[in-house]
């Protein structure tokens, strides 16, 4: 699909948790597709989709690897939906130090779903392709391209001022210098 000027394609995977059977074919296929050479090895721990499953609570939630965060959550949230309680990280896509999901087991690097980007593009992502129950459904839609968001003026200043207020100016400058050296 070739988006017109001012248009872009949004790729979506629609997840229906009620349809999920917990088979983890999606994990298998994702890891196979992203192995090198392609399909040469299978390792669900390297998949960019994980199915949070618990047969005791009847919880089956496929989640996709989102952004990486270097700090874990201190507060957690537990959702109850339709009388069913989900485990605390069920709906979170982050790869974070709190849990093992979406951390490449060999390198420790974060994994992120890339929608199976490839050239030429696939008809649909592999996890969707193997989901026999259609718990995962792929769709594309055109949306108007928004103007690139301008850096909000003063945002950095606000953040720095807050830090200085909390830790003092010297401490913040010293830490910034250290970080500069570490990099």
């Amino acid at each position: 699909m070739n988006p017109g000027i001012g248009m872009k394609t949004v790729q979506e995977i629609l997840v229906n948790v009620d349809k999920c059977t917990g088979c983890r074919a999606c994990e298998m296929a994702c890891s196979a597709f992203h192995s090198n050479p392609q399909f040469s090895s299978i390792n669900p721990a390297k998949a960019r989709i994980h199915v949070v499953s618990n047969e005791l609570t009847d919880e089956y939630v496929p989640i996709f690897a989102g952004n990486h965060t270097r700090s874990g959550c201190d507060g957690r949230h537990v959702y109850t939906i339709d009388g069913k309680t989900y485990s605390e990280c069920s709906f979170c896509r982050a790869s974070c130090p709190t849990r093992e999901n979406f951390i490449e087991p060999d390198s420790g690097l974060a994994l992120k779903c890339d929608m199976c980007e490839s050239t030429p593009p696939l008809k649909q992502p592999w996890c969707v392709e193997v989901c026999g129950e259609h718990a995962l459904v792929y769709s594309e839609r055109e949306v108007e391209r928004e103007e690139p968001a301008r850096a909000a003026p003063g945002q950095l200043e606000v953040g720095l001022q807050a830090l200085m207020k909390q830790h003092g100016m010297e401490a913040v400058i010293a830490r910034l210098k250290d970080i500069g050296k570490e990099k």
Partner: protein
Amino acid sequence: MRYAETGFNLEIDLTLGTVERVETELDLAGSYLGGQGSAAKLLWERVPPETDPFSPDNLLIFSTGLLHGTPLPACNRTVVNTFSPQTNLMSHSLFGGFFGPELKYAGYDKIVIRGKATDLVYLYINNDKVEIRDATHLRGKGCTETGDLLKKELKDQRIQVAAIGLAGENRVYMASIDHNHASAARGVGVIMGDKRLKAIAVRGTKAVNVARPAELFEMSQRIHQKMAGSSGCGDWMAVDEDDSFHHNHFAWGNARTRRPGYWNKELQDRWTNLKYDNMDRQTGCYNCPKKCRNVIKMPGQQRFGYKCFGKDTYHMAAFLELDFSYEILGIAQEYGVDSYSTPQVMAFALELLDAGILQDKDFPEMPEDVRGRFFYLLEKIVRREGIGDILADSVSQAARRIGNGAEAYDHNTTKKFEQLPIKLGKLNPAYFLMIATGEKMSITQIEGSFPQDPLPTEEQRQEFVNKWEAVPDEKFKDYFLNWKKRSDISDEATCDIVDWNEAMHYIDDSLGFCGFVSSFRGQFGGDVPYHMNNIPEAIALATGVAMDKPKLWKNFQRIRTLIRAVNVRRGLRRKDERPPEDHWAVRDEQYEQELLSKYYAFKGWNSEGIPTRQTLESLDLAYVADDLEQRGILDPADGGPR
């Protein structure tokens, strides 16, 4: 690099508390495949035939299938083998779910357990980190409960757990090993309990490599799509609410009473509503597009999952309805008892009470109603309390312990193992051979590739064979085309059919495939995604080992013959190969024995059912022949019995 398999076994000695990672011999000929094939080899080599099943020297082996962890769908059956105190023969059992693939991702093909711990322990496997840990805090915990507690304790929800419940802890012969609403029965849970091993928790984050990636993935996706869109595989009982077949034809109670015409529309509607009103969802096993397990949550009760005939056994044994099975299954599953044999043991006990062989005093404070009685017996059995201690040894052994005529009520066992409660009119030759000679103890572990019944018209038969891809040889099409009446089939065809049925099970159970997509399912519709014509290619693409149909067939024969030798060495003989006397109303002893002799000859076994030296040598099993001769089981002069 080794493909498909990891090349390593875990050797655990629970007496010494040691853990070893042992590289396995590279078997490029693929002689024993994996799963039960290579497990049988270990049992042959390492457990002398005089070993008591309760001896620390008995091994308990958890095997992955050769193709577990590859992209091939529905390849997830974990195989458990040991020697059973019930039969004194090799135990063979399987469970679905996620355990086997996870074990492979942890880097192991098998867990081989010997010795006994002094008190309950569990095994924790996290890739290279393997520990035997105290499990006394899990004493008495249910099977799924144990899994849940371990996941919390180890802070990892992705751990896969196989555990025993109270029944296994108390060495109940019907004890199962449970994992994710799936269970392995037939003599393995009792040995896990005897070894004081409460559970195994596995987590693996390593890769399984395959030899020819692109081709294998393409093949896997083709099969995956066929499975997803086909009604020819998976468990049709998960979706077909008409269960008249089992209720009208199988026997109720202690495998005694048939109730033809039991099923009706009103009942079906009521039971269908009961199911769908209380079903959370249907779940599947690792990397399979089917969903065979019904997950039920009755208000105020434990959630449980069941497959197949497992939903009928309790209420049929008790002459009750489906709601009773739904009530007891969740509890029985947490205690970890086999849902096929346990209800028969209970019905047997109540029959003995009716017959006056057991007395009221043997059942102190037992409720009057049958519902209450079954719950009472379940509690007694899993705790081995009072009469429960005797019943926990299974029907056949309990009958002998009770004596006083109780033996006559042990009427549905073969090789001391409870059979499906089937009582029919006239002998069916293929089924006679399968029940008689099957060493996996249950007919469902042997039957399955060739249809159970002929089709009525020539057109229907022709249409069936036209799309029958699974046949290993064209002769099976001829057999089917010319088959008009169930019992009217040549002995030669019968032997071939039984052989093919067996072959697929021995292959599935060595590779790790689920019977619902292969060995068990072809009998209903013929349209299975895995069969003799594509499995060789799957093995070749995954492992890089050259494989074709004749070679795979020979592997089946080798594994099957080795298992027979393992059992022969422990005393299995012709006299043990009898279906229950009342399995068919009309029996023809002379014909049965003739047919059995023909089958033995067809298999290359002597008149006692012992593989001859010639047969063994042709399957590269000369070492087995040497051993059997040394023990005086085979006569070097004629290959016959001494």
